[in-house]
């Protein structure tokens, strides 16, 4: 935005207007706080619509629910009936076939963990839900994907709908599903379906689109009918992308297992985790949470392995015995174990006396940790609270007091603050860093008044103008309408609380995660340590980390912040490392031969080149942070996440879904902004060459 001098002055005027609005605001409060009388009672309208829908079409959904309940209970009973060694062996063989002995070993150990810790039946109940929801999600996703591929108009409807489905927190649509489909495991199935099918749609459209024209032409020339062209040319060519879709859909379905358990009716591992968390049993909840993480990792690696090897499979020209060796091993060992298990009861049901359950030790460890470190932790927390969180939330005006900073924020000090800001911003301007000076001014105002007390009118104006610069008129209008939704439905204050918490979390995650990512790309050992930690953080049900955080950091926004960071830091690390590791080798070689030091190579060659991927990491960090908001509300926050629970607890569909859409809106605006910014940076970067 610095390139055009006109834009600089517009921004300066906007910032000046913001500052004056804040001061005028004490006389005309409506400029700062949106009056509640102007709120449109959308929740009531939504509730009325929902009631009407349930009354008129309820029978249809109930019928569907009854039909879907049949395969769920059949699969559940089959998995409970098959002796555990058979499933362990089948998992091992499938892993072997998918990728090799290493994965086979991992899967076998993972499945054995579920047996030894004594969570086998619950794990199988969860697995049965996944086994039903995944094929349904794949078929649904494939169908929509083909439709979106065939018709441009359909794609224009499908894409934003997918965005909504993936960003509205699942909690917000649990209640409508419950009202429509009735109580039971089917609710979880539908919730998991809604969340899991979008990746399949995206990958189907992408895969079908990227089939090269020459392949289609050669298909046409050999006289293929449209049907043949589709099933025998397009689909096989797009197979890899489709399988990637299958993989992502499966992972999404597994991650919903825990959410589905909130409804109940399944006695699965998710229910076990929730019960443990309700009792704040740290060790027990971790032991159960690990089951879900392992389940997700095993399924991920197996489907990913099959997706990767699809092409080389066809080339192997060997005998039928060799080609079907995995199937043969699977059949022979299953039958043997079946027979054995009818003689050895421990193979049917793992004896309770043999269960290894180290929860007590884990709990004692945590208690000792708290005892030894409570003072140091308290100090860190106080510093973060008084010097970062409170200023962003309510501003220095309300933060500085003898109790917090040790002195009063006197008018003289306020004047000094203003002068200091002007000097720093002026210096930046003087050095031709015009956009930097604008950023300094804006954040100085933000820190002074606090995000939750900035004028809605000016924030919306500035965001829309920013959108116009980043993405043109379409993005500006979209942003304006989205933010107006937050305002008119009356959730603006909660939305700002969410933005405040997410904003700090994203900054911390991106800085710390980026730093770790750089380290991991430079030092192999760091990479090797960090990878399994990332895997666990991503697949472990997020609830589980709340308990230790609360025990260490107490109820409140600080714990919530850390919980969000723990989850949102993963993409920041991953994308940074990935971006830095996958750079064109010739550029790096050229730089080294020109005599770059390692530091120069990193800061002047690698980081600028990897910027687009690092920006994608920032984008994902924001998405993850917003997704974590609802869960973080369980340790006491006041933003949109809490609204979702209020909706759930009151049986008020409207409140919950409006808050859910609010979160989706924040996520989508942030997504478009970072994408637009990344694109403009890339243009500037390649323009400089």
């Amino acid at each position, binding site marked *: 935005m610095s390139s055009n001098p006109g834009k600089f002055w517009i921004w300066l005027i906007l910032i000046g207007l913001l500052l004056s609005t804040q001061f005028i605001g004490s006389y005309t409060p409506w400029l700062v706080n949106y009056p509640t009388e102007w709120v449109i009672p959308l929740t009531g309208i939504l509730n009325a619509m929902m009631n009407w829908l349930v009354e008129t079409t309820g029978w249809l959904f109930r019928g569907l629910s009854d039909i879907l309940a049949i395969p769920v*209970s059949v699969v559940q*009973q089959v998995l409970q009936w098959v002796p555990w060694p058979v499933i362990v062996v089948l998992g091992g063989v499938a892993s072997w076939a998918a990728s090799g002995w290493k994965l086979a070993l991992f899967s076998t150990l993972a499945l054995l963990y579920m047996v030894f810790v*004594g*969570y086998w*039946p*619950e794990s199988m*109940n969860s697995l049965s839900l996944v086994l039903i929801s995944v094929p349904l999600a794949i078929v649904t996703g494939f169908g929509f994907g083909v439709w979106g591929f065939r018709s441009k108009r359909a794609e224009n409807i499908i894409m934003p709908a997918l965005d909504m489905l993936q960003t509205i927190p699942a909690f917000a649509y*649990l209640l409508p599903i*419950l*009202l429509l489909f*009735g*109580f*039971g495991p089917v609710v979880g199935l539908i919730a998991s379906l809604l969340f899991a099918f979008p990746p399949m749609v995206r990958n189907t459209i992408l895969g079908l689109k990227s089939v090269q024209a020459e392949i289609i032409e050669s298909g046409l020339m050999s006289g293929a009918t449209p049907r043949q062209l589709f099933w025998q040319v397009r689909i096989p060519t797009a197979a890899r992308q489709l399988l990637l879709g299958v993989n992502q859909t499966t992972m999404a379905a597994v991650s919903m297992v825990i959410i589905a358990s*909130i*409804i*109940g*009716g*399944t*006695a699965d591992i998710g*229910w*076990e985790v*929730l*019960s443990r968390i*309700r*009792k*704040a049993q*740290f060790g027990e909840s971790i032991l159960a949470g690990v089951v879900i993480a392992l389940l997700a990792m095993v399924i991920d690696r197996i489907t990913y392995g099959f997706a990767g090897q699809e092409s080389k499979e066809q080339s192997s020209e060997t005998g039928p015995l060799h080609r079907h060796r995995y199937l043969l091993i699977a059949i022979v060992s299953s039958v043997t174990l079946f027979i054995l298990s009818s003689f050895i009861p421990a193979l049917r049901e793992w004896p*309770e006396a043999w*269960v290894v359950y180290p929860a007590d030790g884990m709990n004692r460890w945590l*208690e000792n940790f*708290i*005892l030894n470190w*409570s003072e140091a932790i*308290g100090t860190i927390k*106080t510093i973060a*609270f*008084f010097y970062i969180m*409170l200023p962003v939330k309510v501003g220095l005006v309300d933060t500085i007091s003898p*109790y917090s900073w040790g002195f009063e924020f006197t008018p003289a000090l306020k004047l000094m603050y203003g002068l200091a800001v002007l000097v720093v911003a002026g210096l930046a301007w003087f050095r031709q860093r015009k956009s930097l000076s604008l950023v300094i001014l804006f954040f100085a105002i933000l820190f002074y008044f606090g995000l939750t007390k900035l004028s809605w009118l000016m924030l919306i104006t500035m965001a829309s103008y920013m959108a116009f610069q980043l993405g043109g008129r379409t993005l500006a209008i979209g942003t304006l309408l989205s933010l107006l939704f937050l305002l008119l439905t009356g959730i603006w204050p909660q939305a700002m609380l969410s933005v405040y918490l997410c904003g700090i979390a994203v900054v911390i995650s991106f800085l710390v995660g980026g730093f770790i990512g750089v380290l991991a790309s430079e030092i192999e050992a760091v990479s090797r340590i960090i990878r399994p930690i990332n895997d666990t953080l991503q697949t472990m049900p997020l609830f589980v980390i*709340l*308990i230790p955080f*609360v*025990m*260490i950091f*107490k*109820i*409140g926004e600080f714990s919530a912040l850390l919980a969000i960071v723990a989850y949102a830091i993963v993409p920041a690390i991953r994308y940074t490392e990935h971006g830095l590791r996958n750079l064109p080798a010739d550029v790096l070689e050229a730089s080294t031969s020109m005599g770059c030091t390692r530091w120069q190579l990193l800061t002047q060659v690698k980081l600028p080149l990897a910027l687009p991927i690092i920006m994608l990491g920032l984008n994902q960090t924001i998405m993850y942070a917003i997704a974590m908001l609802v869960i973080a509300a*369980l*340790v*006491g*926050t*006041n933003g949109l996440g*809490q609204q979702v*629970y*209020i909706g*759930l*607890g*009151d*049986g*008020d569909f409207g409140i919950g879904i409006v808050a859910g859409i609010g979160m989706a809106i924040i996520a989508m605006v942030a997504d478009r902004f970072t994408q637009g910014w990344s694109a403009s940076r890339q243009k500037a970067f390649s323009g400089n060459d």
Partner: protein
Amino acid sequence: MKFKHLVLGLAVSTMANSSVFAANGSSDPIKIAINEWTGQHISAHIAGQLLQKAGFNIEYVTAGAVPQFAAIAQGNLHLQPEVWDNNVGDIYPKAVESGEIVKVGELGLQPKEGWMYPSYMKEKCPSLPDASALVECAQVFAAPETFPKGRLITYPADWGTRSKDLVENAGLPLQPIAGGSEGAMIAELKAAYAAKEPALMMFWAPHWLHAELDMDWIELPAAHPNCDSEPEHGFDPGKTGDCGFPQASIGKVVWKDFGSKWPGALKLIEAMSIDNDTQNTLMLEVDNNKRDLDEVVTEWVNSNESLWQPWVAAAQ
């Protein structure tokens, strides 16, 4: 691992009809809701075992505390013997009002709600448990972020805002902080107890936590039905809405057609009553002595036949 045992047994299995009585009502299984905490498990299993004695088939189904009301309204669940009206949102009173679910009286538990503190706080603030301690010792209960006010953990926002209202109405030097969830509240108390740190929290009894941690209650002014209009009740004779909390009610809740399908079972449930002592004793066995829940309940049923015999007889 007792909970594990429980879910295993109850997940799908329907108990066999082994009773000497013939049931007065349908032989379809009565589906009993199982929530996430031990006290409710005990009430549900006592109800379940007694219903079996009266010749009914039963089935236990896990259900979340909020979704269960939709399930009972739709007839997917039939009985929930222990519903607390204090920690569910409006969904419960709304469903009762609309007649979709039916409350068949109180369970008999005498619940208590209020602000509690770990007993070791008495040393740091001798005027406890008197309510004057809230003013005198506010700084003892303070955390850096609430100083000089005391830090009060309230119920999660979706359970209502009674503590916050009381603090505001009575003008107490406390800063209410929403607890987020039951798990978070318990985690905070466990950690505070381990480090002998101050804690002040809105909580309730009976709850298994009281068996594990020694907690005392602040003696808040008595509740009064006209507290919101008559200033003479409560903390300050000049203010309204500054009284302690009225007693919560714990009801036995059934599906609206429960009585017509299993008339005998309804009689039994109406007669059934469980007191605090019973639940506390059984909870202690299960949670602290790590015993199997079903076994503990069976033991209680076997040794208290004189108590429940009339209830089962009512079912005939």
